[in-house]
């Protein structure tokens, strides 16, 4: 993985010192909360309902054991012994004292981490495929490009006061696990017929109150021009994006109002003046960054493992875990393990300090020291030998981390909602917990198969409900929490925005409604191999409406 050099370390330490000064000025009254707000936001510090929250950047979701141990330490020492992994591959600490923030940032700097650009109207932490460098279907490892983008976007002097936040995601697989089409810029690295790296560039995707799927603005961008082209897009957006209404300020609205062709013309005009100059990426420098992401020293192993096979045959619980939480690795004899942070009935995405430490230990011993954070709020051990899987499983199980539900109905994404967030209309976490309890039975879950439920506590859609197979949106109806259901959303390469199914449900009714939708799916499917999303695409929203509102 990427390691800071002297330049990076110096940069982060300068930033910590600067923020320490700003916090001191706030605490001694030189700065009002109004004046302090933009400064703290630029360091990931939010004021929530009950306390200050710190959001720490995990660049493209990649962590070392040492970093994860530090996060565990921060949770224990400065917070309430747990952290919350977010849909942007970051971690949040919900109960932090403002006066201690600079110390925490200094602690983070020790392990090459920071909280820069995890909030504010700037280019946010760049995200990428959480299986990068491991997935069997990967064409190109997206991490070197994500790292180059991370560096270029860090305190970019021109793009720190954009009309609105700006999110970039990168994938290097045809199967998109990074949800690139719902990002402001989505990049797919691929190879042309001559084997050279090219990027398909998508622009203007996003969720929020006006969800939109991105449009492809380039299909063949040479890798050397990646930064120049992104800079051109950002410049056009910075100048032309709407600033009169924050709900219309994302680049998706500019794409929509201006039209893709006109926008592309403007971008090309800027690009013509930028390309071939100081932002051009020399192949040697890309290679230098790539070297940080060289594959770990994999052993040469057979494609199958007797130890693994025996465990699958003899231990049904391990077999269930293996069926659900493993993904194919590009190297024979290895597997990708998803660690579900969605145990039945628990808040999605939370991990205790002890759990983080346990995962750090396992990763150090069995996964080349690497951990990934997924945008589905789970963690990943990217490189585990098949031979080691039974042991790894047992270690995970002993600390409550072996829930075999990756991709299933209880693997729910939920935003913090009304329990923490001052913008919320309704609670998200308790709804997730109740759905999880309703479908707790593991064989029932695996019978239902792949089903992605995503819950947001308000229209800002931090819980990605628009792209949930089943999306749940909290709304306020005359002071009461209500939940609107959308169906058919999807965040992968077949990106779709869910359709509203009908009138909302009260907090009391919502879990029954979800169960009814699942029952309808089970009746409609041709075979267990036809997933919920396949059925929805085949039959549309109607049968679900009919069964849901039959007594209405």
């Amino acid at each position, binding site marked *: 993985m990427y390691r800071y050099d002297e330049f990076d370390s110096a940069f982060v330490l300068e930033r910590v010192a600067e923020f320490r000064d700003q916090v001191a000025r706030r605490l001694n009254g030189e700065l009002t909360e*109004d004046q302090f707000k933009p*400064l703290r936001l630029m360091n990931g510090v939010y004021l929530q309902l009950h306390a200050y929250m710190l959001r720490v950047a995990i660049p493209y979701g990649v962590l070392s054991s040492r970093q994860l141990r530090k996060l565990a330490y921060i949770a224990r020492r400065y917070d309430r012994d747990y952290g919350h992994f977010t849909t942007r591959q970051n971690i949040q600490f919900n109960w932090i004292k403002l006066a201690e923030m600079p110390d925490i940032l200094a602690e983070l700097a020790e392990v090459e981490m920071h909280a820069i650009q995890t909030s504010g109207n700037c280019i946010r932490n760049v995200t990428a495929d959480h299986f990068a460098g491991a997935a069997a279907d990967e064409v190109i490892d997206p991490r070197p490009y994500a790292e180059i983008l991370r560096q270029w976007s860090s305190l970019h002097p*021109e793009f720190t006061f954009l009309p609105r936040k700006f999110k970039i995601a990168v994938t290097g697989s045809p199967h998109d696990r990074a949800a690139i089409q719902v990002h402001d810029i989505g990049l797919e690295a691929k190879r042309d017929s001559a084997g050279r790296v090219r990027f398909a560039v998508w622009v203007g995707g996003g969720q929020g109150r006006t969800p939109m799927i991105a449009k492809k603005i380039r299909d063949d961008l040479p890798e050397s021009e990646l930064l120049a082209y992104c800079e051109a897009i950002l410049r056009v957006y910075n*100048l032309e994006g709407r600033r009169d209404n924050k709900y219309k300020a994302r680049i998706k609205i500019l794409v929509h109002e201006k039209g893709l062709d006109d926008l592309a013309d403007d971008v090309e005009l800027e690009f013509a003046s930028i390309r071939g100059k100081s932002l051009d990426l020399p192949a040697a420098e890309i290679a230098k960054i790539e070297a940080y992401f060289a594959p770990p020293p994999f052993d040469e192993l057979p494609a199958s493992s007797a130890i693994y096979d025996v465990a699958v045959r003899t231990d049904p619980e391990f077999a269930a875990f293996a069926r659900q939480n493993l993904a194919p690795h590009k190297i024979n004899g290895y597997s990708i393990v998803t660690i579900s942070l969605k145990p039945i009935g628990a808040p999605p995405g939370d991990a205790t300090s002890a759990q983080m430490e346990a995962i750090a230990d396992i990763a150090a011993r069995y996964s080349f020291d690497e951990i990934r954070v997924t945008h589905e709020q789970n963690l990943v051990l990217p490189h585990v030998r098949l031979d080691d899987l039974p042991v790894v499983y047992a270690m995970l199980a002993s600390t409550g981390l072996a829930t075999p539900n990756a991709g299933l109905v209880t693997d729910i994404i939920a935003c913090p909602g009304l329990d923490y967030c001052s913008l919320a209309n309704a609670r998200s976490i308790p709804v997730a917990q109740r759905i999880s309890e309703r479908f707790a039975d593991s064989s029932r879950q695996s019978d239902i198969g792949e089903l992605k439920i995503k819950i947001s506590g308000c229209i800002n859609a931090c819980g990605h409900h628009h792209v949930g197979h089943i999306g749940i949106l909290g709304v306020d109806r005359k002071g009461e929490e209500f939940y609107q259901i959308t169906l058919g959303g999807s965040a992968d390469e077949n990106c779709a925005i869910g359709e509203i199914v009908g009138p909302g449900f009260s907090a009391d009714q919502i879990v029954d409604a979800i169960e009814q939708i699942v029952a309808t799916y089970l009746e409609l499917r041709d075979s267990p191999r036809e997933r919920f999303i396949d059925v929805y695409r085949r039959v549309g929203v109607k049968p679900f409406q009919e069964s849901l509102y039959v007594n209405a």
Partner: protein
Amino acid sequence: MSTPEAQPMLWRDGRFVEDDWRFADDSTPLPDGGKLAVSKVRFLADRSTLITRSDGIAIALASGEALGEIENDLERLEMIALHFPRYADGRNYSTARILRDRLRFNGEIRARGDVLRDQITFMIRAGFSAFEVSHPGTQVALRDGRIGSIRHHYQPSSIDGGFEASGYVWRRLSNRA
């Protein structure tokens, strides 16, 4: 902004200096001599007389105001003033970069309006060379040299002259402002 305003002071070349420019509004008659800054509208309306002045002319642009109609006159301008109605309105960072990088404007680029200490480093990187500062805390910080605590930059920029490359093509190292 609720920030208390002091008398604006002009920061240029590392110190506060007397402002040698007058900003004319769009309706009053033009003064006879002296350096004069006008809006784009006024410049286009009175262009023929303005370009004959010998004391120097400048154009003051609002946030995000397009450069198209004045591109061909840039050589005649000594200064362009770019306004920040709110610090969070960042359009003129891009305008400054276009002026420096694409249009090769070599005169003064001045930031006016909501110019605050925590933004000045960004402004310098984007090509600004002078700052009209009304915010008392920012005036003090500039005077005390407490601006520009970040010296490591991950982007090439418009004023690379004084900045060293550092490791990768996109990185730059600056001296303390």
